[in-house]
C-alpha cells in the first residue's frame, strides 16, 4: 500500500480496502488496562475521511461499549482475507448511535464482499449465512493513526497520522 506523506485524511487505499471486504477486529481497554477484543461486522469510512463507523451486535460487546464510553481509545485491525492486506487504525470514540441507511448499505457491502472471500477460501456458505445479521448498533470513532500490518517487510510501519 502506498504511503502518502502524512495526509490529514484516510487515503483512497484505505477506503477501497474497507469496501472490498475486511474482517474487522476491535481492541479497547478498561480502567485496569485489561484489553478487550471484539468483532465488528464491517466498517465504513465517512466522507470526511476521518470518521470511521464500526457495527456491533446490539446484544453483545458490553465490555467494549463500556470501555468506549469510559475511556474512548480504540484500535481497529482490518484484514482482507484473500490477500492478507491488513491495516490497523487507532483513534478515539465519538458516539454510539442507531444504524442509518448509509450504515446499512456500507455494512452490507463490506460483509457481502468479505463473506464471498471467505467462501472462496473454503469457509462453508452455511457458516457465512449464520453470521449475525442484526440488529446492530453503530459506533463512530475518529481515526488518528494508520499502521501497515500486512505480513511482510513493512509490517508495523506507521502509514499516516491524521
Amino acid at each position, binding site marked *: 500500500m502506498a504511503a502518502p506523506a502524512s495526509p490529514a485524511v484516510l487515503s483512497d487505499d484505505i477506503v477501497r480496502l474497507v469496501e472490498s471486504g475486511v474482517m474487522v477486529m476491535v481492541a479497547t481497554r478498561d480502567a485496569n488496562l485489561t484489553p478487550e477484543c471484539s468483532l465488528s461486522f464491517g466498517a465504513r469510512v465517512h466522507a470526511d475521511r476521518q470518521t470511521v463507523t464500526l457495527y456491533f451486535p446490539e446484544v453483545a460487546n458490553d465490555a467494549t461499549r463500556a470501555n468506549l464510553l469510559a475511556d474512548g481509545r480504540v*484500535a481497529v485491525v482490518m484484514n482482507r482475507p484473500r490477500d*492478507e492486506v491488513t491495516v490497523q487504525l487507532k483513534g478515539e470514540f465519538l458516539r454510539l448511535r442507531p444504524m442509518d441507511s448509509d450504515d446499512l448499505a456500507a455494512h452490507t457491502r463490506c460483509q457481502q464482499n468479505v463473506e464471498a472471500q471467505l467462501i472462496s477460501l473454503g469457509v462453508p456458505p452455511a457458516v457465512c449465512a*449464520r453470521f449475525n445479521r442484526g440488529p446492530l448498533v453503530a459506533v463512530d470513532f475518529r481515526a488518528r493513526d494508520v499502521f501497515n500490518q500486512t505480513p511482510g517487510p*513493512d509490517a508495523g510501519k506507521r502509514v499516516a497520522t491524521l
Partner: protein
Amino acid sequence: MRAVDLHALAPCFEGVIPSTIATCSADGVPNVAMLSQVHLVDATHVALSRQFFNKTTRNFAENPLATVWVWNPLTFETWRLRARFERSETAGSLFESMAARIQAIASHTGMAGVFRLIASDVFEVLAVERVEGVLMPPVPGSHAPLPARPEPPERRPELWVLQRISERVNAAEELDALLDSVLQTLDEDLGLAHASVLLADESGQKLFTVASHGFGESGAGAEVAFGEGLIGTVAKERRPVRLSRLSDDLRAGRGVRDRVEKAGGAALRPEIPLPGLPDAQSYLGLPLVVRNRLVGVLSLEARDTLSFDAWHQDFLAIVANQLAMDIEQLASQDHEAPAPGARVTAKPPAEPRTRRLCFYRSDDCVFVDDEYLIRNLPGRILWKLLRAHQQGRTEFTNRELRLDASLGLPELKDNLESRLILLRKRLEQKCPDIRLARRGRGRFALELCCAVEFDERP
C-alpha cells in the same frame, strides 16, 4: 466464564483460522493484531510465535494482560482467552517445535532464512469465555447444517495398532519389506493413505525416497536436501512439522514472498513443489532418529484439512521411534540367510531385446537407452554387478559389496540396504528387464531378461 481447560478448544489452535490479540500499553493505548496461529502448550497456557519485535511485544512487556480471540475451525464458535504474559522461551522443546513449523513454511515458499523465530511468548490463560452474537442460531430447514468434521476411519485401539506394527516389523527380514508393511498398516489401521519414508544418504545432507504408499508412482529415488521444503525442514531440525491447512499456510507464505520481492529484499529461491499430493491440505512429517542420529523422515499427507491432530503426532512419534531403530538394525546386519521356499528365477524370453547401458564415470551415473536410471553409489553398484554378470556370476552378497573398496561405501552406517532398495525400485520402473532378485537375507541375484550393450564414458 469457565474454568480453564484449553484442551477442550484444541481445534482452535491448529492455525486454520487466524486469531487476534488485544493488548494495552502502560499508558493506556490499546493495540490489536492478527496472529496466524496460537499454540496450545498445556491445559492453562498458550504460546505466540515472535518473529520480530512489534507493538504487541512491547505492550505485554509493559502490561502483561492480553485478550486472545480464537475461532473453532469446525464449528466457527468464537472464544476469548483472558491471558497474562508469563515468560519468553528461546530454546527447548516448545521453541524448537514452533521454529520448525515456521521454517518449514518459509523453506517451502523459497524464503528460508528470511524469517526465523525469535522467541515463543508463553501466556497463562486465566479464563475462557465463549463469545455470543457472532453466529446466529441455526434455523431448522433454512440452511444446510454446519459441516461436521470428516469422520476419520475407525481408530483402532492404539495398543492394538502398535502391537500389529511391532509384529510386522519383527517379521520383516529385509528393509523394503519392513517399510512397505509399516506404510500398509498405517493405511489399513489409521486411514493414513498417503505416506512415504525417506532415508538420509551417506553425505548426511540429503534424503532419498525408499518407500511410498498411496501416491501412484513410487517416487523411489526422489531427493530432498536437508532444510529444503517441508520434509527437508523435518530432517534438518529433527522436529515434527504438522500443518492443518496447507493452502492457507502457503498462501500466507507466498503473500509475504511477493511483498519481500517487491521491496527488493533478499534473493529468494523458487517455491518447492509439494512432496506428493498436489492438492494436499494436511501435512505431518516426523524425524526418524536413533541415538541422536537422523536416519530419515516419515512423511504423511492428506487431502482434507485437519487430518492430523496432536494425537496423530504423539502416536506416530512412537511408531517413528520403532521404525528408526529397526531401519538401523536391518540396514547394518551383514549375515546371510537363504530365502525360504522355492527359488523363482526370471526366464529370459526366446528372443531377448537389447538394452543399452551407459556408465558416466564422472558422476557414477547410469543411463539405460539414453534415459537416466540412477547415479552415485547405486550407480557404481549396478555397474559392478553388470560387469560381474558378464563374467558369469549371478549371485551376490551384501557383505562382498561392503568389502569392495572400489564402491566407496562409508565405513560406518553405509546405507547399503537402502541403496539396494532404491536400485531395485528404479530398475522396476525404468528397466524391468534387469532385476535384483532376493535370495534371502543379505543375498541377491542379478537377473537379466535382455541382452546388454555396455558403454562407459568419462
